[in-house]
């Protein structure tokens, strides 16, 4: 089935370091979206990147999309303890629905 898969499943870094998370998917998409989820909370929309875009920035976040490899990456620069959360990619391939991966659990140590 169409699904984004994040890699790694868990990541632990020191404050100030960069964190990179990857997402792979299987079929052509309209767009790909990244979300953050703090423990026990709802999902916060971070960035949407369309299939004809290769890179997008938002503050300390940088998202890339390689449609030839069917993959995306989320880079968080100069990480902070408050960035500790689970990060999910979701692929929009049918225009109305998203398919989520299992997420990357990021731990940023102070």
């Amino acid at each position, binding site marked *: 089935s169409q699904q984004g898969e994040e890699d790694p499943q868990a990541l632990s870094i020191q404050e100030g370091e960069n964190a990179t998370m990857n997402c792979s998917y299987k079929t052509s998409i309209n767009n790909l979206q990244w979300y953050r989820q703090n423990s*026990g909370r*709802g*999902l916060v*929309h971070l960035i*949407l990147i369309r299939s004809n875009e290769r890179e997008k920035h938002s503050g300390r976040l940088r998202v890339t999309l390689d449609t030839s490899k069917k993959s995306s990456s989320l880079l968080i620069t100069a990480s902070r303890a408050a960035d500790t959360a689970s990060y*999910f990619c*979701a692929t929009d391939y049918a225009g109305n*629905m*998203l398919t*989520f991966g299992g997420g990357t659990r990021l731990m940023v140590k102070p």
Partner: protein
Amino acid sequence: SQTIHQWPATLVQPVGSPLSLECTVEGTSNPNLYWYRQAAGRGLQLLFYSVGIGQISSEVPQNLSASRPQDRQFILSSKKLLLSDSGFYLCAWRFPLLGQYFGPGTRLTVT
């Protein structure tokens, strides 16, 4: 601005009891609305989506049902809860070209 509300925030229900979770959206009209379930430590599974009043599409066969009685109201229901219905239920609405935005979620524990 658009906001999405869900209630209750947490719920503990015995097996076999009914369920009703509510989601409402403010600040937009005729939104696409979605119900997802998230098992502990897992990604989200789409349960239902709706493109308009009375229009419900189900993505997985299950013990749950959904209804959309009003344009900005989406309800998730069950007549008899199972233990496997425990999870974190999230409602979302789709903002065209900008993506899906989620409510705060309802944590359901079936005992």
